[in-house]
């Protein structure tokens, strides 16, 4: 136990020191983790033997990341991407594999080895690229979107590759292995549902597994989440989310599929779910830490002995791989009409080899396709190319982007009509109406509520709403508060509403806050906390009822409306003085009297304003059209029809 603590401490410590430094230097967190790994692994030698085991564990971060990626992608979007996914992704994997294979063949490797090496290097690092895109907010750019569809295709392509590699086994390696470790290998075989099944049965099992993820995700997840959510225990919801992801990963491993693909699929199935943002905010921290761990293990796993003894070939191969992949990508970018700086982003971001390279490598060794020595060299190439990726992003940021920015700045800004997203916290009686008005005016809203029933009802009438506690920073983050333009606060809890205003104004001062208040004091408190617009929930409806009361009592409707408006305007002109008075008395009780005086004064002004309207033909405060006095009628006959 002590050893675990010490190791965990070393890893965390390295991350805590290295990542903020890397971030501050503008290198991105990925490079920070990698450096941390190199320092604690090969350089200081604090860790070593366990990195391999840890890496398997840390690869789960990639699985979680793909789950989160899936959550962001509705099936419809995925379908819309199909051309790019298959065209761009397929061509990238195919061409890169062929070019690398050709070069390997020219170095007199056998065709099966050459093909394997080609496949290994054709894959890029989903983990590094997506993480960096997120950090640099490049996800929504043209280059970022295209890179994503390629990565997605690669993640899918891993599966046929894994199926294909055993067929390439070299007879002499197989023989050697069999004679040495025949019995041992049998025992170390992983737990599997499909071992020894004939091909057709295997196919059926795989299909059933995928079907169960899709169908289960679609039909069973909702009742399950609803049941858990109604318990109101946040940590149980987290447990459920983890259970789901781990369960799917386990199922996929059992049938020999990629866990990453399985969870990605589950993510897509749940992308439309009202629990999406809550799921995201629960899984996100685990993903972040595991991915970090993964990058550290990549750094720590660099074998300096092998590297130093083969520094020439390794470096040559690494730069070769990056060059080949970048040129293939550039050509594709040209064919698929990706323009400007996006073309370079697309080409540079995907030029490295990826974590699936490690997976394929260990798999090829297990299946006796390539020798252990070659595999060690190749895994160095994979690791170093990943290591260099942040450098390529820096190259993009510092050299390529500035060159294009000059040209692109002269273009008109694209999103001039974009109204921006509005997050609505709480969709009870109040928030619902706000939401309907905004949505019917083409404003994009994201609705959050912690009442499962409420969310469900809204979903029935096609309102995009999500389950979750809107006062939780995590949930607001996954709902996209950073990109939002406005937050409407219509939650039931007055205290938390004030807290939410304070939090948002402190963390995201640019966001406009529109807040519903319960009464006058709550309104002052919201204003004090920094809300941009507040309204008492009952004020306008009460005024409206009052107006109709006047009408029923015989007041002319137009007159009644004028009186209502006068009432409202008098309130408005007094709100600042009342607010100042309130602020003083909350600081010091003796001002309470002062506040009461102010309030009484408001009432007096109010009734004066109302009387003005009614009895004085020539008032000073508020007035409608007033006829000129009768005595001068003939001389100044403005009111001919009077």
């Amino acid at each position, binding site marked *: 136990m002590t050893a675990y603590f010490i190791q965990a401490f070393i890893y965390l410590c390295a991350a805590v020191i290295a990542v903020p430094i890397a971030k501050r230097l503008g290198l991105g967190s990925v490079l920070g983790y990698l450096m941390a790994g190199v320092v604690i692994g090969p350089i200081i030698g604090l860790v070593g033997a366990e990195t391999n085991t840890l890496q398997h564990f840390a690869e789960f971060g990639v699985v979680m990341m793909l789950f989160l990626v899936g959550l962001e992608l509705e099936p419809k979007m995925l379908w819309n991407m199909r051309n790019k996914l298959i065209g761009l992704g397929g061509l990238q994997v195919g061409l890169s594999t062929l070019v690398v294979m050709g070069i390997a063949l020219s170095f007199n490797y056998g065709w099966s080895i050459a093909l394997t090496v080609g496949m290994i290097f054709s894959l890029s690092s989903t983990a590094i690229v997506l993480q960096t895109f997120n950090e640099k907010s490049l996800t929504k750019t043209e280059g970022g979107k295209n890179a994503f569809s390629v990565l997605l295709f690669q993640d899918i392509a891993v599966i046929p590759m894994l199926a294909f590699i055993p067929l390439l086994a070299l007879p002499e390696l197989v023989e050697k292995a069999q004679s040495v470790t025949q019995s041992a290998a049998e025992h170390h075989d992983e737990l599997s549902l499909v071992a020894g099944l004939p091909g057709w049965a295997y196919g059926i099992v795989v299909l059933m597994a995928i079907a169960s993820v899709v169908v289960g995700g679609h039909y069973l997840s909702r009742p399950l989440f609803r049941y858990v959510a109604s318990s109101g225990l946040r940590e149980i919801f987290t447990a459920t989310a983890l259970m789901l992801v781990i369960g799917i990963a386990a199922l996929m491993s059992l049938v020999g599929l990629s866990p990453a693909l399985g969870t990605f699929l589950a993510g897509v199935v749940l992308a439309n779910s009202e629990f999406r943002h809550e799921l995201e905010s629960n899984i996100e921290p685990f993903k972040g830490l595991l991915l970090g761990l993964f990058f550290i293990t990549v750094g720590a796993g660099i074998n300096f002995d092998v590297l130093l003894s083969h520094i020439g070939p390794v470096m040559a191969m690494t730069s070769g791989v990056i060059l080949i992949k970048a040129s293939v990508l550039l050509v594709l970018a040209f064919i698929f009409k990706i323009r400007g700086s996006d073309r370079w982003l697309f080409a540079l971001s995907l030029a490295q080899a990826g974590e699936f390279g490690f997976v394929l490598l260990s798999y090829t060794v297990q299946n006796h396709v390539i020798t252990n020595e070659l595999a060690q060299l190749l895994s160095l190439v994979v690791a170093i190319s990943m290591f260099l990726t942040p450098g390529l992003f820096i190259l993009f940021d510092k050299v390529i982007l500035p060159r294009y920015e000059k040209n692109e700045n002269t273009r008109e800004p694209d999103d001039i009509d974009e109204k921006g997203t509005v997050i609505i916290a709480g969709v009870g009686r109040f928030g619902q109406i706000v939401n309907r008005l905004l949505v019917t005016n083409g404003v994009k809203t994201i609705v959050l509520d912690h009442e499962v029933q409420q969310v469900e009802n809204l979903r029935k009438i096609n309102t995009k709403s999500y389950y979750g506690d809107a006062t939780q920073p995590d949930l607001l983050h996954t709902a996209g508060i950073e990109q939002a333009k406005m937050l409407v606060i219509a939650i039931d809890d007055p205290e938390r509403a004030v807290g939410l205003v304070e939090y948002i104004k402190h963390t995201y001062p640019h966001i406009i806050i529109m807040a519903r208040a319960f009464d006058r004091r709550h309104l002052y408190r919201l204003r004090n906390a920094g809300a941009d617009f507040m309204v008492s929930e009952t004020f306008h409806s009460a005024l409206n009822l009052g107006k109709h009361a006047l009408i029923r009592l015989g007041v002319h409707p137009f007159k009644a409306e004028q009186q209502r*408006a006068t009432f409202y*305007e008098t309130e408005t002109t007094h709100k600042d003085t009342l607010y100042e008075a309130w602020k003083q008395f909350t600081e010091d009780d003796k001002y309470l009297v002062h506040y009461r005086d102010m309030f009484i004064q408001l009432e007096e002004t109010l009734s004066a304003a109302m009387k003005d309207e009614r009895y004085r033909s*020539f008032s000073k405060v508020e007035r409608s*059209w*007033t006829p*000129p*006095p009768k005595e001068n009628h003939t001389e100044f006959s*403005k009111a001919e029809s009077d």
Partner: protein
Amino acid sequence: MAQVAKKILVLYAHPSQERSEINTPLFKTTQLQPNVTAVDLYGEYPTFRINIDREQQRLRDHDIVVFMFPLYWYSTPAILKEWQDLVLEYNFAYGAKGKTLCGKTFLCALSAGGSESAYCEEGYNHFSLRELLRPLEQMANLTGMNFLAPFALFCARTASEENRVDTHVQKWIRTLRALSEDRFDIEFAQSLEKLNGHLDQLIREH
């Protein structure tokens, strides 16, 4: 030569500005001019609750008053009428003590859908634009303001397609500058049918 610039108040009325092709660009450029206060009446009073005191103060603070609007049914959009009804009170704008507006200058900057030939006795609108603006002319007379011929754009619906908007805006800016710098022949302007087409005679260059 140094003299105080005249202050211009532009009261702009357009109830659907997102569809406006002439008046909104015109207003937006107007807003940027020196010595001009440009008020979007529909923007400031979306419920027609006009603040009479504020509007009267604005009138006191300016020397030239402009109504800027698209012609609706041979008249102004509704809020300008409401503005007249409420702001031009007895003993403020007219009446024994109502001398506030005396000596100021008043003009309309408007757009009309029909062609200029439609606005004459033979045309389908039967009256000239200036004739149709008689109620406003009389408003100016009663309140003691000098009524200038309108600054008008005809065939407004197709002006954007025919690239007439920019020149119209430029001419308007030139008029505003000349008015503010007192280089405008007020007397001549009172006698015309419309200002457009006479700017070279109306404006004295420096």
